[in-house]
């Protein structure tokens, strides 16, 4: 069966030096990070930290130097990502820009957009959000209704985006809007825009999630005027452009390391004298973790080789999401912890947070069912 294949890839020896630099940097900055702060994983938000990373060339690493990048490989970037995630560094400010928005502009943006935006992302100065979902367009993104109408001097946007992570603190959104036709036109007539969120007519309302966190938002556009050059790539090709970057979004180490803090704290609590039952549990989790890491590195290698591992990426996100979602449950079944977020031990606090947020791990970035549909198509079943 050759529907997909994970070519083995390994991190080149040079990455060892980079890894040491990152660990030294983290040792310096992480002194006062609590376990529960680290458990926020890539939801942890700290613009100052992002600037520090930018100063070291760790954002937009693979981009051309003329756009502020460092022209390093996808595998070197992989090392930065996994070290940050393992440490629980607060990377949310630049995460989406580094992962998706920057690469999108690099590929489809105008020269002016690239020169204006990319160096600022790379310096850790810009936070981006993704405006795909809407009230009536979740899994079925093609059903979006938000419209951009071409007018004298630009585009007028009306409608609303929903669940937009970081919109309340981002300077820009990459938005997918309908530029002609209506929802019955499905994937046709959609276009992508670089939206400066400070423009008049755009209102951002945070929505609290069930853990009390404020991460996602509703973004309402009331005849907001965007300049003509806000269009990214070509009008009507927004769908193809948006899909082109999904392998980047779906295969990274954030797709299986989001709840790693629970495993770390469990290992700390168990110690070397733990029971055989405990060792077996840690061993099973490690076997999954190590395998997912190799799969994710394999996809990074394929991206570096300019291949299109779209299905492999869906496999990583499906398996990885199941793993990071199951971690707190597996630990809870074993340890029977009281979930005390305020006065509990480090493990209890971490578990309290993760238990609340893991339901979202199989929703964000494409639901489990949608991913499995993509894999099934790769198998020739659809």
């Amino acid at each position, binding site marked *: *069966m050759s529907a997909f294949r*994970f070519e083995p890839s390994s991190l080149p020896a040079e990455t060892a030096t980079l890894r040491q630099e990152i660990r030294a940097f983290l040792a310096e900055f992480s002194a006062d990070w609590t376990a529960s702060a680290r458990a926020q994983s890539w939801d942890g938000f700290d613009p100052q930290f992002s600037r520090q990373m930018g100063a070291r060339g760790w954002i937009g690493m693979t981009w051309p130097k003329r756009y502020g990048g460092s022209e390093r490989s996808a595998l070197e970037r992989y090392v930065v990502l996994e070290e940050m995630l393992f440490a629980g560094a607060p990377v949310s400010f630049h995460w989406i820009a580094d992962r998706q928005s920057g690469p999108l502009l690099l590929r489809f943006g105008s020269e002016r957009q690239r020169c204006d935006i990319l160096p600022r992302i790379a310096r850790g100065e810009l936070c981006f959000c993704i405006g795909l979902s809407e009230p009536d367009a979740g899994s079925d993104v093609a059903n979006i209704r938000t419209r951009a109408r071409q007018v004298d001097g630009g585009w007028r946007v009306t409608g609303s985006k929903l669940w937009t992570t970081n919109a309340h603190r981002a300077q820009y959104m990459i938005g997918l809007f309908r530029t002609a036709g209506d929802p019955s036109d499905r994937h046709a007539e959609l276009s992508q825009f670089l939206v400066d969120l400070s423009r008049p007519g755009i209102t951002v309302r945070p929505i609290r999630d069930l853990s009390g966190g404020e991460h996602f938002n509703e973004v309402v556009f009331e005849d907001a005027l965007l300049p003509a050059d806000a269009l990214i790539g070509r009008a009507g090709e927004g769908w193809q452009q948006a899909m082109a970057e999904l392998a980047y979004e779906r295969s990274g180490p954030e797709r299986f390391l989001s709840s790693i803090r629970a495993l770390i704290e469990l290992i700390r609590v168990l110690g070397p004298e*733990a029971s055989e039952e405990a060792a077996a549990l840690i061993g*099973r989790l490690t076997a999954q973790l190590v395998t997912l890491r190799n799969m994710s590195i394999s996809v990074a290698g394929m991206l570096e080789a300019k291949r299109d591992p779209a299905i492999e990426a869906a496999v990583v996100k*499906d398996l990885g999401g199941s793993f990071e979602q199951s971690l707190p449950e597996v630990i809870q079944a074993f340890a029977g912890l009281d979930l005390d977020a305020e006065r509990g031990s480090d493990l209890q606090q971490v578990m309290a947070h993760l238990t609340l947020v893991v339901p979202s791990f199989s929703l964000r970035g494409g639901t489990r069912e949608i991913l499995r549909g993509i894999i099934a198509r*790769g198998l020739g079943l659809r």
Partner: protein
Amino acid sequence: MSETAAILAQMVDRLFTDHVDAALLAAAAQGRWPSELWRLAEEQGLTTVLVPEARGGMGASFHEVCVIASVCGRHRVPVPLPETMAAGWLLAGAGLDVPAGPLSLGGANRDDDLRLQRAGTQWRLSGSAHRVPWGRMAGSLVLAVEQADALLIVRAPREGCTVDHGSNVAGECRDTLRFTDHPVEVGPWPAGAAGNPVMMIGALMRSGQMAGALADILERSVSYANDRKQFGRAIGKQQVIQQYLAVLAAEAAAVDVAAEAAFIAADAGNAEFLVAAAKTRAGTAVAPAVGIVHQVHGAIGFTLEHPLHWSTRRLMSWRSEFGSDRHWAVVLGRRILDLGADGFWPYLTAV
């Protein structure tokens, strides 16, 4: 895939496609030895691929041999080719000659009680090796015995030992071999390597075979789902069936990646951690994968007539051979717990 690996893949795939069919599998399950298949495998040099060229083998790397193990699993090959490749590598590594004919591995069962004694210049073996793969057909049994802090590789000819026939739930021969003051050849295993090398290489081979068996049941299930019609359309058009098969494909991919990583690590000589991870990961995949393919196949897949069970029963059996996933999970977990919360990540990113 390297050029050698690609050539090997093509070679074994052709050999097994031509020579392993349902009739051969059924005969083998009755204890019949497929001598023609074995002769061809030997003739093509497959049995000694891991033996250095200087000792008459092909001198291939483990990474190149990964595909052979996997293709053996995919075709449900009813001969101890993985065992023989492994035994040849162990013998050569201990400076011993590699005899022709099928070989097997021993000392990998928890009930084994094998003792080595020296009488003058001659070493003698006593005790039992349980559930030895194809033990009744193997010319020799290769095992590792710890003796005064040194690890010794032992070649025990089958001739002269007592053999009790047995089988695993897939109908593959798993025999008990009893030795009494049995003359054996012994060679030293290089110091420093972690763990019992027989267990390790046996688990490595099984991981590769399990990856192959999962590829087989995935392929069968996808094509069955596209062919079988109910309610006027192929069952593969039902979303729930598609979702099951996507889960299966992801499991199969994970085991494939885990096994290949272990074979690569074996070439670097630091295999234990990744072999433990591979065998654990493979074992974990068995229940969901087998459950899915039998669900998708319906009643026909539950018959002895249908070829599906040749793979699913092997997966059920192989799961606990050369250390179950439970066994290897404990090995892995102990290592991680020893490294501790601050030590395991640096280790994991360096292996």
